[in-house]
């Protein structure tokens, strides 16, 4: 049994080795992928270096600033730069689409739209040109081109009847052929990953990156296997070669191109998001509802004043041991930050609803599943970006809080504006120390799409092994 399958696979490989299609397509695709990987690698390293330099410049400028009033320093603010994952050059995920510099200052949660490059990505309608796209979008097409007639061809030419009469079952034939094309995929992936590892070795490699890269390799291999099985099954089901090819191309078009786009468009229809202006307005309105720190008659702040006065057992703000303005500033900051975080969470909730809807569609699109997993493994998914943004907002709040504390404790209420704190006090503030999530943290995101993908694989294998000996 095993012997036969291996013999079939060997025979199929020899046939492919002699065919024009493989000889042209495989080297072409490998060269293209290597070229892309090289240039993305180079750009990624440039970007990481640039971001690091920006961060250093920002920190140096913060340290070099003159003695300043703490609230001045709070508006001067600080910038943080998201350093992209070292695996971005294989799967760039959301990186080309988002701004990676955040400017943090008092009262405001700015995200900057300075993307890595100013060029538009809209013209790559079939997917961003990256290694992952070539593996997930283009390679299935190559598999289709190589194998669409692998069974239907035998049937049309009558060789299938011969094989069966020799005692080979269709089941064995299908598994053997699946094995052959999986081996071709394996070679393709191996070459790409060897090149990728070559790039990675030029920098310091962390253990977690090795794990991530390994996961990507396994994922891609599974994905290719799933496609191979799909192609072989279609080829077995269809009566003619042309039918098999048309059906497979249509299947590819629907599951890889149309369904994903349609799913997101539908989700956007279903769960609309406020645009930038309206989001800002809603946030401002919510803040105003709680309290306006700049309005002397604001009920929230009147109450807050009474509370603080009672706490210190004094009757006038001038008698407080701390600077009332700094205290108010911090209360205002607390409100803004809380409301903003809440509003932003609402916004992300809408995005989450959209993604939920898409994840239902993804049951039927292995591409969507693999694409999601791939970007999670590469740490370039939307979640990794939002995690960073969230951490930056936390940091911003604490950063401004420390400045407000300086304001309350070091600056006298009388002649507030003319006073300053020393540069040293500013330099001593805590710096942003970002820890990106590990794969273990993200298991809850991973297991579902992975299980569905495995489910499809099992169904595919079952279908293969249940194939009956039909000769025409």
């Amino acid at each position, binding site marked *: 049994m095993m012997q036969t399958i291996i013999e079939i696979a060997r025979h199929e490989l020899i046939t492919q080795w002699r065919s024009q299609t493989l000889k042209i397509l495989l080297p072409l695709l490998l060269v293209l992928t290597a070229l892309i990987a090289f240039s993305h690698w180079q750009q990624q390293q440039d970007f990481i270096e640039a971001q690091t330099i920006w961060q250093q410049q920002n920190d140096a400028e913060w340290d070099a600033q003159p003695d300043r009033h703490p609230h001045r320093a709070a508006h001067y603010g600080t910038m943080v730069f998201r350093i992209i994952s070292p695996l971005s050059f294989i799967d760039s995920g959301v990186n080309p689409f988002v701004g990676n510099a955040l400017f943090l200052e008092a009262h405001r949660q700015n995200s900057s739209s300075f993307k890595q490059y100013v060029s538009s990505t809209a013209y790559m309608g079939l997917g961003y040109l990256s290694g992952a796209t070539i593996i997930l979008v283009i390679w299935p097409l190559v598999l289709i081109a190589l194998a669409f007639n692998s069974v239907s061809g035998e049937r049309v030419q009558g060789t299938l009847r011969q094989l069966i009469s020799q005692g080979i079952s269709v089941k064995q034939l299908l598994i053997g052929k699946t094995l052959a094309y999986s081996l071709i995929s394996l070679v393709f992936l191996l070459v790409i990953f060897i090149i990728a590892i070559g790039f990675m070795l030029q920098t310091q490699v962390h253990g977690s990156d090795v794990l991530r890269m390994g996961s990507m390799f396994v994922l891609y291999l599974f994905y290719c296997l799933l496609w191979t099985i799909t192609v072989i099954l279609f080829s077995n089901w269809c009566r003619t070669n042309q039918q098999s090819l048309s059906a497979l191309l249509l299947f590819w078009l629907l599951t890889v191109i149309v369904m994903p786009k349609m799913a997101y468009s539908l989700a956007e*229809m279903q769960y609309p998001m*406020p*645009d930038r202006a309206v989001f800002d307005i809603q946030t401002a309105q919510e803040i105003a509802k709680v309290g306006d720190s700049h309005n002397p008659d604001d009920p929230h702040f009147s109450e807050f004043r009474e509370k603080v006065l009672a706490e210190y057992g004094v009757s006038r703000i001038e008698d407080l041991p701390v600077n009332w303005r700094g205290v108010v500033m911090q209360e205002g900051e607390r409100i803004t930050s809380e409301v903003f975080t809440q509003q932003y969470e609402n916004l992300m909730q809408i*995005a989450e609803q959209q*993604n939920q809807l898409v994840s239902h569609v993804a049951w039927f699109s292995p591409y969507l599943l693999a694409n999601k997993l791939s970007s999670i493994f590469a740490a370039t998914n939307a979640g990794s970006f939002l995690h960073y943004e969230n951490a930056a907002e936390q940091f911003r709040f604490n950063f401004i809080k420390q400045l407000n504390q300086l304001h309350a404790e070091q600056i006298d209420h009388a002649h507030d504006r003319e006073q300053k704190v020393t540069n040293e006090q500013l330099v001593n503030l805590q710096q942003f120390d970002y820890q990106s999530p590990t794969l273990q943290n993200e298991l809850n995101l991973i297991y579902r799409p992975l299980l569905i993908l495995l489910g499809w694989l099992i169904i595919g294998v079952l279908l293969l092994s249940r194939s009956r000996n039909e000769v025409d």
Partner: protein
Amino acid sequence: MRFIQFELRLLWQNKLFKWLMLAYLLAAVLAIIWGQIGLEREYQQRTISEVNYQAELADYQEDAPLVPYDSGYMSYYQFHPVWQKPSAWSALIHGERSEAATHTRVRLLGLQSQLSNTATGNIAAMPIGKLDLSFIWIYLMPLLIAALSLNLLAEEKASGRWSLLASQVANSAMLLTKKMLIAAGLLAVVNIVILLAAVVLTDIRLNGLWWQIAAVLLAYQLCWFLITGWIISLQRTAIFNSLLFISLWIVFAFVLPGLAYLYQTQQQQPAEHVSMLFDQREYMHDSWDKDKQADFDAYLQDYPQWQTTEPTLQQPFDWRWYYAMQHMSDVIVAEAVAQFRESRVNSHQIGNQVAWLSPLMRLQYSMNRFADTDMLASQAFLDQIGDYHQQLRDYFFTFYFFGKPFTVDDFADIPQFDYQPVSFNNTFKTIFNLLLVGLFFVGLILLQTRRNYD
């Protein structure tokens, strides 16, 4: 005529043909409806911001007249909405509109740091992209054309009808051409129906622009029919035809746009424009620690229109100095802003050049231009915000610099932002480009036919 009738009947009996056409038509109409809903939502968002804006102004109006110190505060807090108003066609052709905020708000402070706001949106959706009518036209229609006509010859041959027909008709190539023309004609009719549906379902009008877009679309269709014709003329198997076609499509739709993007990005330093934010921030905050009066004097030197103002600054704080420094923080980064602008436009131009090689890219660039949803439109929006900010400055500075109270009547004269679309488009260039590609393939067909007869 009878030939056409016969062929039409034949096509009508062809289930695949019928279903494909129907699916195409349905998908297109659905895309139009979705696009229109999206467009109407943009208008609704704008209404929300306008209502809020008027309410905010009305609040200040209650306290009018405002002395310059208070109206200075007003400008500190008051945001003015700016909107890159979408054209009617943007419902069908979304273009690059998701890539930057098209509706945001600005105030009288330094402008550049306000413009770096990101658009809200589902980040996870961005790499996948939108399904709008332009995607169906640009990317999917070629596949439809292939499905309709690629295997006309191969199928006829396989069914044995071809030898019969070819023996009866003198010029078999002519027969094939006629068959293709019928398929092309039917698709053209469907496309016109879709365009007319757009007129009914959206705010698109049957004007010159409509005709230009129809013409470009038909030229694109012709171009792909010629490509298909060339493949047929090779007289290979149906399988070979399909594989060759799909390879060409991938090159035009994926490889060339991707390489063009790669080339565009190679021309840039990553995130080079962040320095704009740095410089602006340094300037703004350093000014607090410098000699305010000296800076203000220098400002009045540079902007003589404000020279008749009271030259001495009020202590401890003067809005005139504040807004002057905010303005200066824009002035000192003007060069970086100009460079940013040039990078964007340059990148757009490179893409536009590469598009000569790919009819698919050409149509996309052309469509996005028609709908005013491309980089040029987005840049025009930024430029116009700059102009608007200047108008706001000119308006409010009159009150601050000449000590005028801001009265109830002055609210009505606050400048409003009104986006002016970039109105040129590349109809002739596009048609020329598409015909050029078409002619190239006609040349190949002629060459091939000669070879076939030899």
